[in-house]
């Protein structure tokens, strides 16, 4: 176990131990994986001593340190209204209170589960991943960051430092919903994060990100395009919800069938768009 005090020390540690090293933030994904013998790292690099990773700054957009916890997203007053509300909602849904105090945004993203809850709202906000490595820093749009089930663009010698969210503007609203059979301690059968930005009663930008319906979180592009440049009526929202289903490529498993997942994409897209619209209009919904 290595406990670096800065991003630089962390990069050094990774350079030294290469593929044998594994980063741990909250450990809520990693520890079960170790326990089930899915991973056998030679050394664990603990991020809990790197203070910069725990910062959340809101100033013309957001900068979310990779080690910011789900609980912080849930409770931070700056995320409680309008534009960032979807992000706060996704944080509030993770695990249980105990889990949320440990679970980090970076861990959620780097673990790259198709069902990860904190990814869709960040995708909907066009977030960018800030990555540190031996050759310095690089930036990758979040939508390109995840490459498959549990795989990302990160090299063995890199770490995720921060999520950078551009300012969505004054009339933007976000919402996140997921479906689980149980109220808590469950995994999304489907998750949908929507973001709409308005100007003069017209939608200038729409983002719909879907979780648990493909190997990676995906954007419902056709649905987004159908909304942009339009006034968002219930009919348009319903049409977009129908289009969103086409972006889903779900599988049937112990959590839900293809048929039900497609059905849920439509329902949750309609609901998140409706709520996001109300929030963009300044509503407290």
């Amino acid at each position: 176990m290595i406990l670096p005090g800065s991003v630089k020390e962390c990069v050094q540690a990774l350079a030294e131990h290469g593929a044998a090293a594994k980063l741990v933030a909250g450990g809520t994904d990693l520890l079960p994986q170790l326990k089930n013998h899915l991973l056998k790292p030679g050394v664990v690099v603990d991020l809990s001593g790197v203070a910069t990773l725990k910062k959340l700054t809101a100033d013309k957009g957001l900068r979310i340190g990779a080690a910011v916890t789900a609980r912080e997203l849930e409770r931070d007053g700056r995320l409680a209204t309008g534009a960032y509300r979807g992000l706060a909602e996704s944080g509030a849904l993770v695990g249980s209170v105990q889990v949320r105090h440990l679970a980090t945004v970076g861990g959620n993203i780097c673990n790259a589960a198709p069902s990860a809850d904190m990814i869709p709202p960040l995708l909907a906000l066009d977030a960018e991943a800030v990555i540190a490595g031996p050759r310095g820093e690089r930036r990758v749009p979040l939508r390109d960051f995840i490459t498959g089930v549990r795989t990302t663009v990160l090299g063995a010698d890199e770490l995720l430092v921060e999520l950078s969210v551009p300012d969505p503007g004054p009339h933007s609203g976000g919402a996140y919903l997921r479906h689980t059979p149980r109220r808590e301690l469950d995994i999304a059968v489907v998750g949908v994060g929507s973001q709409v930005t308005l100007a003069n009663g017209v939608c200038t930008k729409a983002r719909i990100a879907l979780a648990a319906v493909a190997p990676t979180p995906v954007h419902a592009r056709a649905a987004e395009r159908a909304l942009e440049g339009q006034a968002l009526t219930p009919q348009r929202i319903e049409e977009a919800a129908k289009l969103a289903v086409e972006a889903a490529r779900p599988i049937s498993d112990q959590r839900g069938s293809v048929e039900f997942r497609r059905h849920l994409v439509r329902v949750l897209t309609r609901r998140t768009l409706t709520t996001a619209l109300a929030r963009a209009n300044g509503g407290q919904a």
Partner: protein
Amino acid sequence: MSTMKTTRDVRGVGLSIPRPDGPEKVTGRVQYVADMTSRGLLHAKLLRSRHAHARIVGIDTTRAKALPGVRAVLTARDIPELKHKAPTRAHAVLAIDRVVFAGQPVAAVAADEAAIAEEALDLIEVQYEVLPAAVDPLKSMQPGAPPVAELGTEADTSEALAHSAVAMAKGEAAPAKAVNISQTAAVKRGDVAKGFAESDLVLEHTYRVPMVHQGYLEPHAVLAEWDRAGNLTLWASTQGSFNTRSEVADVLGIEENRIKVIPVECGGGFGGKIRALCEPITALLARATKRPVRYVMTRREELEAGMPAPQVIIRLKTGVKRDGALMALEAETVLESGAFSGTVLAVSAVFLGSLYRWPAFDIKGSEVLTHKPSVAAYRAPVAPQTIFAIDSHMESLARALALDPVEFRRRHLQKPGEPMVNNQPWASNGAHEVLTRIAEHPLWKEREAWKKSSGNGHGLRGTGLALGGWLGGLQPTSATVKLNPDGTLAVLTGQVDIAGTNIALAQIAATAYGLDIDKVKITTGDTDVAPLTGLSAGSKTIYTVGTAVLQAAQNARQQTLEIAAKELEASVQDLEIVDGKVIVRGVPDKGVTLASIGKKGNLYMSKVEPVLGVAHPAFSQQAPAFAAQLARIEVDPDTGQTTLHDFVVVQDAGHAINPLGVEGQMQGGAVQSLGIALTEALMYDDSGRLMNPSLLDYRTLTAADLPDIETIIVEVPSPSGPYGARGVGEPPIVPAPAALANAIHDATGVRLTEVPLTPERIALAIAAKG
């Protein structure tokens, strides 16, 4: 209230007393088997088959044995006691040459550390020849299905006996080529064909309840140690130490006197810890290594290779007249038993055919083997599944005939004295009383208003109720009650306390003897010191062991009074026990203390006999116990999500010895019942592998999913139970699947016949209805 014979109000029967083991458990101080150790302790791990059905071509343990810290690696070849035709799961200690379910143990390791034992498992090489598996019971019962048991293996009916289920005729032999039908049963009365012909409405549905796990918090665990003389001690998490002793003795082929089972605090069983499971292999590892060995199953092993409840499939067809008269019932029940026989067929027939008054019925049942883990009892075995079918059906009939659903049930509900399917009369019970009581509940009376409040930002709202119960188990038992030299009282039984029964038994002793509860101690002894007793199962501990304790305490009281009578020169009839003193009635200052009587029974050169009350009754009269449950719910028609707003349990306890304990059982039973209704299912893929082997995907409900559960105790005294008590453990797990299906029907108009009533099933059914 109570029928106690003592003259003063003794603090005993009828008081609500918190379980003394509660604080110990919630603060984590209780020592379970997993916390226990012994000098030189080794840790066991089992290598389990990944295949549901395969021939074992070869096993190579060389590399595992060579791993430092490994003390023994056993395969079937090392255990000469093993039989090819294992009659029970316990006998199938390790697979011999064929595995019959995914998760079946094929090799066992004992090592200095659990991690080393686990590492050794990876070094054991097993060559399998994978064979086709019978996974779906309806296919498995057809001729030509891949066989599960070895040809000629006897059906195991001991579970039926253990639960003192109602005797029933064996059915005709299974068709010769249907190799996986291990038991059949059939009952018939009247002319069913004529009944259907004369019916105005014939309704037929097939109801399905999947395999579910009992969900006890503590997984199976045992610590085994042999002494040099060849005596085995087992520290076990069990629902019946004498049963564990018998089974292990039988598997190992040694005398019961050579085995001592010490029942350790049991972290839940619910039927899953009746039969032996990991005790034999742990004992064998301890014998091979001459060291104490501990084995604790993981949660994954529990889910993959525990002993869950059977899947139950019931095809139910009924005919009724337009005015609601019942005409005929036909049912076919399939119980999926997994890889070994051992289910209870009769319970299903009794509830299907004789809870309500069917003039003609024809009921057939089959136990079918599949390549899945073999099943065991789960709290009121087969009753929740059967009530799901018959109560859903009664509700559907009432709705189809536009009759009041409660009135319809009440009109046809059989009364005590009327015949069950096997022609034995129903014993006294409170089925009518609990049904009446729940129908008086405001939530039932206001169901129309609740339904009307649907929409407008709310989901679809509905209310449902169901009635179910348990016939009551019986088993001989024994207890002793001794008077200590200081005048306190000590009760000894061998009964494992898994449900807060010991405090209630002490309450019975207190009242029967005439001494306050705080002067009474109760001990569960091990199999060497305690008198024989049965399982903590079948809702029978208070009913049977309570009777033994009552009689033993009365016996001790009689002995006490006789000793006092001599001293006081009075007749026994004129004596009473008040405040720890035997006095002549009405003359409180003339008396002898219990302490002085107790002391003289243990004094050097004393001629006074020690007081030792003994009772060892056997039983023949069951005491059925019923519960009704009501759910007020709301369904999101788009996602199919059901929100429970209110839940009510009404239950006949006969006489609540410890009302707090009874309410605890009603709460816990309701939660498990709701889990079966809404979320729980062991899901298998086509090759017979469990798809959800963790508590993430095997969804027991959490506190966040549950409303406050209201409990209402009804008391219809049992003529045969101690102070009128009935069993209370099992009835509350029975009604919820039907109550929820009925509530969802009320809310959405959709009738679901398969549980769990998941959001997916509900949403897709609503979407299909349009």
